[in-house]
């Protein structure tokens, strides 16, 4: 048992370590209300800008709020919304990609040209424009990020469906009378899913980074909600006296994004899936 575990650890060291780190982070986010020593939004001017202590493991910010608790609660927002963006973009991309690839013809043309038009605009700039017109706020940012992200999934899936469609077993399934829906469910979706998971792992890092960039610019999560990008935005005025205010949230963003990128890289190498 232990030997087997050692074997896995040795051959897939990066995958195991990254997955462990991510598990810990997800658990931290999930159990933030129990783990956090203080209320993340409780203002306490008496204890403002404290150094790290037993009560406040990372110290306090300019409003006397516990930085450690805010980081924990921030993980909920970053990881939670990144998951939401990933899942939504994936679902939309999966549906549109399968429709385009399977039906083909003018439907395919229409959907793919729509994608071309979207991809002609640099994606983050599109999100900024979207937020500018539809209004600032977390909802709009998340929606905008989904809107630019589904295209990539749809393209990859469409390509895979096109090549799968030519396989003999799909023809066999058709001849034996399986409905289109059964073929999708039983043969096509299980075949495209592994590559999508790899793509998604890399995408999670992208989503977390961009979500926090938007909050940093003041367009996404609004204070006092604890979010890493918004924390850096609030902490930047104290850079001369208390750099800790922005160092911790920045480190967290970096840790999460590095882990997702490393994991995605290792997975794509392991399963021979090409990155886009």
């Amino acid at each position: 048992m232990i030997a087997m575990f050692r074997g896995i650890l040795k051959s897939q060291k990066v995958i195991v370590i990254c997955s462990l780190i991510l598990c810990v982070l997800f658990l931290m986010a999930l159990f933030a209300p129990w783990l956090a020593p203080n209320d993340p939004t409780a203002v306490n001017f008496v204890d403002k800008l404290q150094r790290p202590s037993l009560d406040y493991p990372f110290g306090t910010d300019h409003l006397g709020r516990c930085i450690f608790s805010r980081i924990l609660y921030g993980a909920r927002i970053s990881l939670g919304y990144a998951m939401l963006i990933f899942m939504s973009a994936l679902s939309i991309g999966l549906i549109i990609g399968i429709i385009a690839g399977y039906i083909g013809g003018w439907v395919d043309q229409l959907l793919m040209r729509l994608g071309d038009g979207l991809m002609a605009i640099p994606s983050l700039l599109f999100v900024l424009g979207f937020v500018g017109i539809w209004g600032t706020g977390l909802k709009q940012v998340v929606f905008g990020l989904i809107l630019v992200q589904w295209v990539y999934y749809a393209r990859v899936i469409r390509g895979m469906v096109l090549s799968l469609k030519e396989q003999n077993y799909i023809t066999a399934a058709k001849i034996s009378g399986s409905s289109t829906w059964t073929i999708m469910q039983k043969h096509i979706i299980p075949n495209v899913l592994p590559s999508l998971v790899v793509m998604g792992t890399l995408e999670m890092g992208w989503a977390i980074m961009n979500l926090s960039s938007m909050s940093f610019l003041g367009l996404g999560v609004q204070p006092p909600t604890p979010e890493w990008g918004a924390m850096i935005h609030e902490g930047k005025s104290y850079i001369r006296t208390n750099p800790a205010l922005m160092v911790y949230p920045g480190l967290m963003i970096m840790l999460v994004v590095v882990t997702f990128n490393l994991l995605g890289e290792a997975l794509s190498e392991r399963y021979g899936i090409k990155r886009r």
Partner: protein
Amino acid sequence: MGTYVLKRIITIIPIFLLATLLTFSMIRLSPVDPAEAYFTAAHIQATDEMLEQKRNEFGLDQPFLIQYGNALIKICQFDFGISYVTNKPVWEEITSRMPATIQLTIGSLLIAIIVSVPIGFLAGIKKNSVIDHFSRFLSFIGASIPSFWLGYLFIFFFSVKLDLFPVQGIGTWKHLVLPSITLAFPLIALYTRLLRASVLENLQEPYVLFARTRGIHERIIMGKHVLRIAVSPMITGLGMNLGNLMTGAIIVEAVFSWPGFGRYFIEAIFNRDVPVIQGYVLLAAGIFLISNLIVDVIQMYIDPRISRKGRQLQ
């Protein structure tokens, strides 16, 4: 060669039209009434008559396609409308702020190329050496570090602690150093990685073996043949990444109070200055598409196999 370029230009036009249609629909589908947005941005308390008059002026009573057509004709003449806030033409606002942004972008591109070419190239030639590990470390960190945070770290160490560079603003070359390095960081990561992979791939090519068997000095093979072909994916990366560079500049300009277009764009977002937002998004799309075209043409000069492939396809 000529036909290839022409073909590429022709494929760009419908894509650009689609991008304009998407942007235009995004604005028209939004719950915001442009006339109301105009008066809010201009801080004017509008009466119903004023709103009605403004709606007529914007042509909002006309059918969607006619509105779109009119907007398109204006866009082709570089007329993006008039800013709601400053009442100046958007094109004028953009061009007056562009030099600062271009300065920043070129600075960071230069830094990125100067740093990543030697590192990526050496990492590719000497796989698993110290420099190779360093390059991989660099490309992971560079791709994962949030640029706004990196900018503040630089400010903290180099401006506050060491007092080497000014904190914010524009002026001497010293002002340019920190923002361009910040903006260059993700590019360094990407280019190093692309060049390394491309060098490794090229070393497997028969032409390297052929050159070696002919007894050509290793240094000449690497410097003259491999490097020349290996930079090709890097140039594609450059074109693909120009969009990221433009958005990256928005964030870096916000951090360093760089008076370029990015900062103005953020202000426009907060004010819901619709013509400015639309103008910049479309301009970015145009620049992005044209730069990709230029990149393709440059690549064809560097690697003649590409146009040959194109000709074979024809």
